[in-house]
């Protein structure tokens, strides 16, 4: 493989897409963040009341960490080498080895101790991705996809975040591009990606996922104030919006990003229908943003009983209907 001299960093909304996109660009494959996201079927919805983080049920607009990465590489036929280490020193040695050979290397890290992160985002979240591409005087040059420019971490800082503990503990997990096929079948990969997203949103026979999950969440939200009391109800509802809008989503729980993907796909596949659908999805994203506005008000008045829960729940039902219709159309458009 030809080795360009410098690793080009490009900011992305979401770390997993961003790392894949940046790594592939280094090897001469230009795929935008939405492209990676779409091929990896990154759009999803799930609400899991029995799975709690910080005592609050998990609502998620994406599949589990690592899945976008796995699907994208599989669908494009690109193979990655991946390794985990029990011994932190060995993990750092292996990284240094890679960097000495000029191999930019992706890593899973915890964000809590990332010194360059804004304080408000420093939770114990352990499935963040970044790339190290050079080491100078015990300092690593870092391309962290959510940041605007290059960052640096010292040996100790990097070791610390690579060995964060808790849910999704990274255990020094690192990965790098091993092999890129001569011909990449982008069209086929896009179609597979879209197909799976439609399937995930429409047909999983468990009511926690896809559009059924949105309806389920609507019922839950309607009952929150009665069941939980004002304060807890506000936290629970606020958590949904945090999952929807926090760093990494590109707005509206990835709906806008997926729209951008469909628009690119329309051109590559020469299917103008997808372009219309991409605009429609932006409209659905706007409904999600409206949901966030209502929730923002609920949370602001968190100490008094708020009538807006019904409104929020109704809106979720509208969104579920719109998304159901949307993904049915999308499925037709590519078949």
């Amino acid at each position, binding site marked *: 493989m030809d080795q360009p001299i410098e690793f080009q960093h490009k*900011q*992305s*909304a979401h770390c997993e897409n961003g790392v894949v996109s940046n790594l592939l660009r280094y090897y001469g494959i230009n795929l935008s963040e*939405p492209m990676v996201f779409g091929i990896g079927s990154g759009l999803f919805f799930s609400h899991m009341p029995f799975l709690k983080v*910080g005592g609050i049920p998990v609502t998620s607009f994406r599949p589990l960490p690592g899945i976008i990465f796995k699907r994208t590489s599989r669908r494009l036929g690109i193979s990655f080498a991946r390794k985990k280490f029990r011994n932190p020193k060995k993990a750092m040695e292996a990284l240094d080895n890679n960097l000495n050979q000029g191999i930019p290397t992706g890593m899973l890290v915890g964000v*809590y*101790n990332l010194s*360059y*992160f*804004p*304080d*408000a*985002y420093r*939770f*114990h979240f352990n499935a963040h991705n970044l790339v190290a591409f050079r080491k100078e005087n015990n300092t690593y040059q870092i391309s962290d996809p*959510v*940041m*605007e420019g290059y960052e640096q971490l010292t040996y100790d800082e990097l070791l610390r975040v690579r060995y964060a*503990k*808790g849910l999704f*503990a990274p255990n020094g997990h690192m990965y790098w591009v091993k092999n890129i096929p001569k011909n990449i079948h982008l069209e086929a990969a896009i179609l597979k990606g879209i197909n799976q997203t439609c399937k995930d949103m429409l047909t999983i026979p468990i009511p926690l996922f896809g559009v059924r999950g949105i309806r389920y969440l609507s019922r839950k939200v309607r009952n929150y104030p009665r069941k939980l009391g004002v304060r807890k109800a*506000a*936290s629970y509802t*606020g*958590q949904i*919006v*945090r999952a929807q*809008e*926090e*760093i990494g989503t*590109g*707005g*509206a729980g990835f709906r*806008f*990003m997926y*729209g*951008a993907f469909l*628009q690119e796909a329309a051109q590559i596949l020469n299917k103008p229908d997808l372009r219309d659908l*991409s*605009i429609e999805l*932006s409209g659905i*994203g*706007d409904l999600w*943003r409206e949901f*966030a*506005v209502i*929730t*923002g*008000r609920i*949370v*602001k008045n*968190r100490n008094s009983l708020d009538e807006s829960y019904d409104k929020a729940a109704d809106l979720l039902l509208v969104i579920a209907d719109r998304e159901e219709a949307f993904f049915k159309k999308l499925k037709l458009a590519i078949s």
Partner: protein
Amino acid sequence: MKAKDVPQDDANMLQGKLREPIYSLDENGNYTTVQSVGWNPKNEVMKEAWDQVNEKVEHARNKVLSGEMSPLGYYIEKNIMDIGLVAKYMGIWRWTVKRHLKPNIFARLKEETLEKYAQVFNITKEQLIDTNLIKTEK
């Protein structure tokens, strides 16, 4: 969402360290990204989440200062951790950590154990045992 409508409500959540790219539509209906410093509803829910953290920290601070709990309890909340997570970092059982929350047992801990706890919280051993610090820390 239209690119020109991407909100720029700065509540200093990002501390000027970055701006987030938001995907939106330009005037020709093409997707583009616009850098945003924040959005009010989102700032609101994040503030609420942090208020909850801070409430827990205050509660723990009072308990430590009144002698009901060892300083460990304060630093656990301060670092947004829980007993399970601290136990994982320490490589010991949960119930052992729980035991160390009792001031009289904490006072008898070995130097190495204190050192290890201090490392988990990214402070020194001296800071860990000094309750005066907890009184004054914001």
